[in-house]
């Protein structure tokens, strides 16, 4: 249901969508540097879309950021510096992989914590479980059970 992004982009830009994702004109002549630009692009969010990276997005803004990234790389930035250049302009919001900091600890470590709690809890439960004798079935239930079991045969 990615159409939401589509819809948002379209409604924001009306006729302005002119192209799909990375355009031939944007590409850098150096294939290695272009590959770096592409991998950076997949981690940056198209701000006017929903959850699409600028590498995937059709929006004009995504195009601008793609060009910005490539310009930074051409100027000799490392990958981290190029990403930082975009972040300093648009904030952490632009990162599809949120930075690990106190405000995101729950996000990053929540699932692992849950898994560990679940594992220890389960093991504890298995060990500490008393042998329970299931309550006896009533006569009616016993007859019903026999009928059901017979159906299976």
């Amino acid at each position: 249901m990615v159409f939401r992004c589509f819809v948002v982009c379209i409604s924001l830009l009306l006729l302005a969508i002119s192209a799909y994702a990375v355009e031939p004109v944007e590409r850098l002549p150096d294939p290695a540097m272009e590959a770096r630009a592409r991998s950076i692009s997949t981690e940056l969010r198209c701000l006017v879309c929903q959850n699409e990276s600028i590498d995937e997005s059709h929006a004009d803004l995504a195009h601008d950021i793609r060009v910005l990234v490539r310009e930074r790389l051409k100027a000799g930035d490392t990958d981290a510096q190029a990403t930082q250049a975009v972040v300093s302009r648009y904030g952490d919001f632009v990162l599809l992989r949120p930075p690990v900091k106190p405000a995101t600890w729950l996000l990053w470590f929540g699932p692992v914590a849950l898994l560990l709690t679940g594992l220890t809890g389960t093991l504890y439960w298995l060990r500490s479980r008393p042998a329970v004798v299931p309550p006896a079935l009533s006569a009616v239930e016993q007859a019903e059970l026999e009928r059901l079991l017979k159906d299976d045969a």
Partner: protein
Amino acid sequence: MIVELGHFCLILALFVALIQSTVPLVGAARRHVGWMATGRTCAIAAFLLIALSMAALMHAYIVSDFSVVNVAENSHTDKPLLYKVSGVWGNHEGSMMLWVFMLSFCAAAVAVFSNNLPPALRARVLAVQGMIGVGFLLFILFTSNPFLRAVNPPANGHGLNPVLQDPGLAFHPPFLYLGYVGFSVAFAFAVAALIEGKVDAAWARWVRPWTLASWCALTIGIAMGSWWAYYTLGWGGWWFWDPVENASFMPWLVGTALIHSSIVVEKRDTLKTWTILLAIVTFSLSLVGTFLVRSGVLTSVHAFATDPARGTFILLLLLVAIGGSLALFAVRAPKLQGGGLFAPVSREGALVLNNLLLSCGCATVFLGTLYPLFLDAMDGPKLSVGFPFFNRTFVPLMAPMILAVGIGPMLAWKRGDLLGALQRLWVAYIVAALVTLAIFYVTYGGPVLAVLGIGIAVWLAAAVVTEWVERVGLFRISLADSFRRAIKLPRAAYGMSAAHFGLAVFVAGVSASAFSQEGIEVLKAGGSMKLASYEILLERVEKIPGPNFTADRATIRISSGGVAVATVYPERRFFPLQKQTTGETAIRTNLLADLYLALGEADAEGNWTVRAYWKPLVPWIWIGAAIMAFGGLVSLSDRRWRVGAAARARRSAVAAPAE
């Protein structure tokens, strides 16, 4: 007039649902047979009324009755009939109608196919379904009424968003909703069991087919949506970890856990509380999913404020449904007693691990989807959570699960022999190692993780086959005996094998997508480009008219080593009504790899941007999903679910006189 009748039927359905949600419940408490029986009558009556109401709305769409606001806003006379019909659920009000229609359908199905249920349980299940129905009918009638008339009807409608005018997307919502709503049956059974204070093997046996059926529908629905994204968006992406997708993926994950844990309840009479909780959580996530998508909170928390009536109603409904069922769970669950004991290493243990990993996977998706919203609501920093986050958190959780899928079925119930199981899988290691090394050699220098992913997939496929070989005793006993055993294996066993095999195929497809190649070039008519081993020639681009659009259609000839492979026709379609352009990609597949072509924009000199992708094994993603759903259906056809079917067959065999 028909529209008013539809509206009237919907109101009537609300009253029927009110009776359905109360009278049988009281009847069950007082053991009043007549009161309990109203549940059945009401469920069927509500279904018929809602079906009529749905038909009335559909009729308004088909005849383009623009005096109905909903039709005017979402339809147009020029639209092909298929999209007039699918336009019914292409908007908020209509999709809620579809939801409630499916809900009443499920309730009616329970009413009709529940001859074997104890009457009190049946009455309670139907009452709970009635309550859900009341909530949704109130929501539709008070905040999202599709039957409202316009004072000044427009001459023509606004039309449906062109991106939604696609056969894949026409059927995607019904399947998805059938899955969501199907889980309401498991939910109703869980709540009824809590009221009754009893969960036993028979209960699990009644719940399993419903869960399986909804799971199949949800699998198909999600796969359709992702396939649509793949062929529509023009660069071959198929899953984006978009909140809307996640909303459907969460119930799928927990639903998958539910299918597995209900097996333990049925076979071993334990994990009862956990299974009840899963049933509640699965449907709760379906509810949350529906509302996340429909309320617009995902775009921003503030979207909630634009329509406070709807937002408040949604919150209230979620609170009552989820809070109520969880409160009931908290009170009654401790009374449910577990029976069978088992060691940590056992089939039960493996299924618990499966449940744990799937639930944590779901928690990851849940956090990733709602955390930005949560921070936003707390006036915290604005965050984005996208595919790089899920790749680093969700995927590492699923990798051990896929390994466990191969081992689990090899373990015995109660107490298993892990070492023994691992040894019995020796063929799987050898096959997986050989394939991994071969791929690693061929793609040397490429993505290593993707090679490992394929290796795991091969291992799982080999483990599934090994398990079957063991079960039928192939190579151990005579071929004829093995054959006899293979025929006698229950369908549920084949269903499991198929679903697990489908998972392997799916994982292989996902992993291999890392090896795709792309070529993006600006071509003149007659120009060509190279991609993988293919030569791609743009022959010409011409304008062609469509029913409600005009298209630029490219003719592209694909050849390999001078031999013609195919001619494909990707398009760009312009919808004048909405002033939107959409792409129609062309995909040439040989089931091992897709050649994916999309036509881009023309520049001032009339050169066209052509995007070509070579995507190995990508079709396996959907083939795998289809095999999984097929496995579910095979399991569903197991006659053990049709309690009493065998007895009926025997009775009729005896009744037939031996003349």
